């Protein structure tokens, strides 16, 4: 466990907590993008360059922006007056705490050491060739899924003409 890991971990946890706790949704998304960046840094540290950069590109470049747009599109005066947390927040929080304690216990109770062999970062060529060979079917399916999601998102979010209430 290196210092860099500790820094990144603290950054991630702090920004995640902020993202889930701040009142202003835009602030939430902004802190969230710090989280995403931190996770990407974690990936880079672990030698998964490609995944880390993809993480930034997809999450910071797309998901965060998308969320921001969605927030801008759904802002209403009524929404701001309501509270940040739902009525059953305490139950939810307790559930989350329970989940974390159980998971943490599970992690700590199992001595999974893992092999700390010399890390050879996975090269893009490797990823590319396995995408084109072993994983070609999942790749095609993902492509199909993304296309479907794209079309679906547009169709769902598109304003219908007859919808003039």
């Amino acid at each position: 466990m290196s210092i860099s890991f500790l820094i990144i971990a603290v950054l991630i946890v702090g920004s995640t907590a902020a993202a889930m706790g701040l009142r202003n949704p835009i602030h939430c998304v902004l802190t969230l993008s710090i989280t995403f960046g931190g996770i990407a840094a974690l990936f880079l540290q672990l030698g998964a360059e490609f995944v880390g950069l993809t993480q930034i590109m997809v999450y910071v470049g797309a998901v965060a922006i998308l969320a921001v747009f969605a927030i801008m599109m759904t802002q209403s005066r009524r929404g701001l007056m309501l509270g940040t947390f739902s009525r059953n927040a305490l139950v939810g929080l307790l559930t989350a705490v329970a989940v974390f304690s159980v998971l943490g216990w599970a992690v700590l109770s199992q001595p999974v050491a893992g092999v700390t062999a010399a890390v050879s970062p996975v090269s893009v060529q490797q990823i590319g060739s396995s995408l084109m060979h072993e994983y070609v079917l999942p790749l095609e399916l993902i492509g199909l899924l993304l296309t479907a999601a794209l079309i679906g998102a547009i169709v769902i979010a598109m304003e219908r003409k007859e919808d003039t209430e």
Partner: protein
Amino acid sequence: MTGLQAYLLLSSLLFAIGLAGALTRRNAILVLIGIELMLNAANINFIAFWHYGPATTYITGVMFAIFSISVAAAEAAVGLAIIVAAYRHSHTIDLDSMNSLKG
């Protein structure tokens, strides 16, 4: 605490925070974001297990993370589109007031 355990602990913490957010926030978009965070926590696990796994040349973990990111992107797109559509319908994205299905 070994390296792998640290990563797993971090990811479970992230997962728990994401879950907490998803469970407690009123804003539907933030609930969705909480779910994204949970997915990210899972991704950390994939990468950590790959890194500490038997052979880094065996890249299933990385591939899984990549696919998971793609799926998450699709999920975010569709989820946000649904939220926007729901907002257009009921003029709120407050989950507590979206209870017309309640029996």
